[in-house]
Every structure is written in C-alpha cells, then in structure tokens.
C-alpha cells in the first residue's frame, strides 16, 4: 500500500499556495508534515481528502492515479481525514455522529440498542472508552469531540488516515491514547499522515518528516537524522537563535490582585497577583477551570465571591466592555467561536475592539484605521502580507491567531490575559508572540499566560501558577521550576 503525491500545485484566486509538493509513504508509515503557519499543510491535506481540487500534479494510490472530485471519492479510495476544525453535529448523540449514514436498522427503523453497542465498540477499539455514546456531541469538551472525530474516521477502516493537528486540543492521557492508537494502526499497515506543530511528538511518532515552507517541500528526512532545532530552522527559513526572551528586570508594583475569587462549579477561592512588568504563567489540566477564571476576570461571567483589585482599587466588571476600558484584554482559547468574525475582513477583525478609537467626527477614520491595521499585519508578519482586505476565514489557523492578538494589542491593554495563545501556532510565530509579550511586560504591562504547554508556561514566564480542580494548587518561580514539579501540582490529588 503506497501513496504518492507528485508535484502538486494549488492556487487560491491569483495566489499560488502550493508550488509543486511531493510526498510519499506506504502502509505502516507515519509521515509527519511540519511547517510554519500558512506553509500549506492544511491545503495539501484538503487536496488529499478531496475537499479542494489540485491545479496540477498527481495523486497515486497503489500505482493507481487518483482523480478526487469530492471528499466522497477520497473516502471511497480509503483516505479518511480528521480536519483541523471539528465537524461533529452537536445536536446529535455521539452514536449517531459515529454511525452517520450507517445506522443499524430493524424493519426499516433504527435499532438504537445495536447502534449504541456498535458506537461503544468503535470508541473502545480507538481507546477512547471514557466517552458515553449516548451524550450529545455538543456537550463534550473540544478534546472529547476531537476523539470522537478520530473514532469516526476509523469506523470506515481507512487505508490512509490523515490527521491535521489532532493534538492541538488533546492533552495528557487523551494524547497518550492517540499515540497508542496510531501505533496500533501502524501495525494494521495503515498509512498515517500527521500534521502538527508539536515537534516533540513528531520526532516521537514519525517514520519520516516532510518540512514545508511557503508551499514547497524544503526537506524530507527521518527523526533519527534530524533535530528539533534543525526542523525549526528549516520551517522558519532562518535560525531562531533563542526561543524564550532573557529574564526581565524585577517587576514593579502590584497591578492586578485577585483574592478568594469563586464561581461554584468552575473555580474556588482563587487568589494571586500580577505585578507591572511581569509575565505569569498558568498551567493546569484541560478542564481545570482556567478558561472560566479568565472569562470571569474579564467580566464575561459574574463573580460569585471574592474581590479583584486593579491598582489597589477594587473593581467589579459586569461586562467585557468595562474590563476593556479598565485596561484588560482577553485572547480566548477558542478562536473560531469567540475570537474572530469569519465573515469579515482581516482589517475589520483587527479593528473590532478599537472601532471607537480612530474616528473623524462620528465616522471611522478609514485612512488611519488602514494604516494602524497594516502596521499590525507587518509587525506580526501575518501572511499573506496584503491580507487586510481578505476575509479572515481564508487565513491559515496560525495567522488567524496572530490577527486576534493584533486586535487586542491595538486596544492598548495594561493587563493581558492569554488563554492558550499558541494553540496551533508554529514555532517561529510562537517566538514572535513570546517577544511581543516580553516587550509589553518590559513596558510595564502585566501578562497572564494560560497554557497547557509545560515548556512554554515555564520558559516564557516569571512565575507559574498551577490550577487543579478549580483551585490554585501551587506557585513556583519559573527560573527554578521544573516540568515535573509543575505537572506534580496539577495532578496530585488533595490529601
């Protein structure tokens, strides 16, 4: 069983985003595809899965030329894809999502007991036994939805399984389960194409690694014959001398002080402070309650008990607008649902939080707005560079994320709360983001960096707060912290 991608080219409108990409693999391989945001990974995958047509080039499966006109053709050929974006039907049970179009029936009617049994089987086989097939897909956390997506893809016993950043929303045991699954599939001689920004897992899993930069394959190699540093350099096209910035000077006075903050069912008795000029990391297991805390600090949900002080003065935000005008900003963890307006242009999205800021009379000063937005696009190196007028939906995941950061930086916040800001973001871009928040901190801002990435949560911060079951379970200075310590705080069950 062999798959070959030969000299594939693809252009959107006038912009060519793939300039002749080659890729090959055979049953049992795990071909990792890595590259910077906007490099063309998802596009390549959309072509493999029949979702996009290729302009030129060829796809060969077992010596047969594939002509994929629709995802359906791809599935018929045995190629199944789990997309970067979740596609479950939130209103239907997990069972129906898994067996969509293949529900067992008796006398024309659906046989629910049999259906649930089969769904159960699929989940167990995939190693995701924790999920109850009878729940609504919409009621699962993103992580769990992702697992159902994968189980669904396996249900049709594909010969090629394509995974686009499956680990972006997975963590811990879920991730381990995924890896175990991938290994089982390898033994079943399935070819796996695996897109990820997590070089660690790439080097751990892959049998071969394809590095794409700006739509061309710059190198095809194997884990044994390369290093993370080399990969990063190849992806970025330049040497990233240092990932995390130098230590910052001793922070200034207390900017944000949280005391005994609680929201029953979400988080309990949370206390911490942010000082001017410091970056504080917040680690925790998915579901620990960090996002809820962030949303509450930002005035999106009401404080049940406890106090929040800004510059020593108690504040109580009843809506995000209040928090923003007080100098807070929140980059949410869920780009598509709460981060951007897909139907609008990049410019409209970047300007969204500052519509009132640049006006001439009652009207928006279009010229100044354009200028400031273009500055941001340049500053964050958002690709393609002339995207201001494009709908943000056409940008790659990482570039969308940068646009959202740009939106908030325009609002000129003093306290910046980032919830998983580097999810699905490539290393070079991460470095940009670390730099940006570092400069912000140095200019007297305070940053709360919520992240599930141990290395980053320690490396990019001054202190690390750890959350477990909605409570702060520990705090460590980053310069002395070890990953095991932080992890320990996050999982150790209370005595």
């Amino acid at each position: 069983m062999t798959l070959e991608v030969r000299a594939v080219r693809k252009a959107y409108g006038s912009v060519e985003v793939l300039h002749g990409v080659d890729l090959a693999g055979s049953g049992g391989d795990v071909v990792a595809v890595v590259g910077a945001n906007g490099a063309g990974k998802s596009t390549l995958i959309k072509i493999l899965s029949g979702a996009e047509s290729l302009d030129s080039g060829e796809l060969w499966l077992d010596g047969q030329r594939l002509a994929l006109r629709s995802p359906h053709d791809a599935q018929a050929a045995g190629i199944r894809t789990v997309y970067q974006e979740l596609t479950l039907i939130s209103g239907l049970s997990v069972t129906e999502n898994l067996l969509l179009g293949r529900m067992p029936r008796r006398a024309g009617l659906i046989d629910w007991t049999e259906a649930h049994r089969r769904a159960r089987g699929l989940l167990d086989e995939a190693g995701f036994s924790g999920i109850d097939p009878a729940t609504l897909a919409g009621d699962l956390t993103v992580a769990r939805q992702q697992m159902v997506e994968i189980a669904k893809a396996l249900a049709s016993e594909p010969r090629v399984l394509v995974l686009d950043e499956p680990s972006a929303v997975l963590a811990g045991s879920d991730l381990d389960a995924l890896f175990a699954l991938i290994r089982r599939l390898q033994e079943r001689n399935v070819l796996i194409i695996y897109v990820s920004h997590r070089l660690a897992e790439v080097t751990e899993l892959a049998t071969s690694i394809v590095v794409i930069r700006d739509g061309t394959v710059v190198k095809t190699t194997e884990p044994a014959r390369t290093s993370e540093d080399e990969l990063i350099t190849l992806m970025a096209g330049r040497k990233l001398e240092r990932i995390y910035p130098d230590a910052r000077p001793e922070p200034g006075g207390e900017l944000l002080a949280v005391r005994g903050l609680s929201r029953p069912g979400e988080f309990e008795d949370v206390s911490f402070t942010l000082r001017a000029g410091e970056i504080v990391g917040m680690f925790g297991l998915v579901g620990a309650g960090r996002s809820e805390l962030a949303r509450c600090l930002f005035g999106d949900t009401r404080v049940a008990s406890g106090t929040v002080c800004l510059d020593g003065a108690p504040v109580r935000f009843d809506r995000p607008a209040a928090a923003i005008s007080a100098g807070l900003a929140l980059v949410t963890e869920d780009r598509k649902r709460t981060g951007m307006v897909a139907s609008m242009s990049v410019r409209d999205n970047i300007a969204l939080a500052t519509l009132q800021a640049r006006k001439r009379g009652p009207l928006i000063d279009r010229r100044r707005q354009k200028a400031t937005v273009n500055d941001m696009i340049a500053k964050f190196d958002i690709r393609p560079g002339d995207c201001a007028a494009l709908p943000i939906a056409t940008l790659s995941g990482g570039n969308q994320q940068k646009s959202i950061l740009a939106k908030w930086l325009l609002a000129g916040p003093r306290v910046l709360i980032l919830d998983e800001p580097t999810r699905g973001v490539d290393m070079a871009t991460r470095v940009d983001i670390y730099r940006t928040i570092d400069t912000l901190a140095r200019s007297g801002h305070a940053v709360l960096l919520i992240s599930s990435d141990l290395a980053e949560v320690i490396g990019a911060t001054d202190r690390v707060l750890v959350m477990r079951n909605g409570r702060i379970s520990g705090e460590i200075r980053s310069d002395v912290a070890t990953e095991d310590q932080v992890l320990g705080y996050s999982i150790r069950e209370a005595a």
Partner: protein
Amino acid sequence: MTSRRLTKPAEATATSSSRGLRFIGGRPITPMGVLVFLLVVLVAVMALSTDGFLSERNLTNLLKQMVTTGLLAFGMLVVILTGGIDLSVGSVVAFTGIVSAGLIADLPIPVAMAVAIAAGIGFGLINGMLIAGFNLAPFVVTLAALTTIRGLAFVYSEVPIAPSDPGFFSLGTAMLGPIPLTTVIMFAVFIAGGIFLSQTPAGRAIYAIGGNAETVRLAGISVRKHVVLAYGISGACAGLAGVILASRVGIAQPSVGVAFELDAIAACVIGGASLAGGRGSVKAAFGGVVVLALINNLLNLHGVQSYWQQVLKGLIIVAVILVQRRSQRRRA
C-alpha cells in the same frame, strides 16, 4: 522542548447544558415539559374563566379548528429541522383546495383529492430542488412560490367552487364518535411523523442536515435528496390541509390560506424548534399547535373584540416564548 500534557481521567463529558435531562434518539425533551405546564395553565384558566369551554361542542370545535395549523405545522417542522422554511404552504392550501373541488366534476372524489394532494407534493419537491439543487435561500424561493402558487390558484379558477356532491363534504365533516375524522387524520400524521423523524435513517438525516450539512455530505448521505424530501413532506401536508379545509368549509376559494404559514411557524417555535435547524421535536410542535388553538378559543369565548384579539394574541405568543426561553435558560 518537550510538551507533554495530561488530563485528569475524571474530566468526564457532559457539561452544564444537558445536566439532568433525558434524551430520546439523542435529542433533549425539555421544551415539552414547559409546554405541558403551559397547556395545563391555559386549560385551567379557560375552564375556570369561561363556562362554554368544557362543553362537548366547544371541545369538538377546538379539535376541528387545530387541524389545518396542525398539519401545516408538522410539515413546517420537518423543513425547519433542515434549517429551512416554507412560506408557500398557505398558497398550496388554496391551490389544492380549489383543484380538488374543481376535479370532482370529472373524477371520483378520492381520486380528485389524491390528485390535488399530489400537486401539493409537486410544489414542495420543486421548492426543495431549487433550494437544495442550486443552494438558494429557502426564504426567498418559498416566498416566490407563495406568489406564484397563489396566482396559479386564481388561474385555475377565479371564482370559488362549491361542489354540489355532498360526498365532497364527508371528509371534512365526518365524526368518529365525538372526534372529527380530520382530527384523527392529523393525529395520525403527527404519530407517523414522530416515528419517521426519530426512528428512521431519513428522519435522523434531516436532523443532521440542520446541524451540519457538510458533515452529512461527507458521511455519504445525499443532503439534496433529504432536503427535497423535507419540502415534499411539507407540500404533502399543505395539500392534505387544503383538501380537508375545502371539504370542511364546503366551498373552495382561490383566496384562502393567506398567512397560514405564520401560525404554522409560530407553532413550531412555541414548541421550541430552532429556526437555525437541527433542533425541534414533533411532540413539542404539536404542543405549540394546541397552545395557539387554545389562545384563539380563549379570546373568542371571552368575546374579546376582533382588533383586541389580534393585539392580545400577539402579546400572549411573546409571553409564551418568553416562558419557554426562561426555562431553557434556567436549565442551561
């Protein structure tokens, strides 16, 4: 740098929005509860505030009067579940009514009625093909259909047709004991429809399409086919309603049925259906139909003046969906 992640096994699935609910074929039954409550209240109010209400005649009237809205509401629900809407049902009622009355001149009554209903199905299928085939906005397509089909009804006969053959009235007037035949037919439609939507692959596909058409397509289910089917069902219900109405009134008018679609839609939404698609239950839609019928009956029995009736009806509908929403909120 390694980036390992962990999660506590305890991090189980269900989030707040579903806590404490049971599911049928994977869809929540909450709105139903609220409706039942609402209905009990309404009935109590009416039984106490008016003496006419519980009289057999009035109850029979109620049963008769909910048939048209009921049939249209079921068809509308199916369409709404796909994320669409069918504004043309009122015109289809007019067209099928007048055609059925016109045809019995040359055809046996059952055949004439069958032909009329078939015409209704035809209109529905055309709507569906335009919407699914060219992916046009259902609102506009069926809006255009509303105009066109109304026009065709007049083209077929400018003047009302009052068949002399008493057999034509039997469908609309026959009683099974205290219950009108037409009401029984409506119940049958709702029961069959309920099973169709919750227990058959096609029914579930219709729900799924309303949820995420793209995913359904990838699952190898023909979205087009099922959307067309949905509008076909709506057309069938409208056709049946048209024939029944003509037979009940005893005279078929090309001008009948204006704004019928609005009550049907209102019934579905009162029943907690989401116009975005994917959410809604047959039971609850039926509840919505009953609520509307009770409101009308209440206002009539209290002899509220016509214009005030309109004013109050609007206000009551808002009140009802407010209660619905509140209850959903509390659960969420």
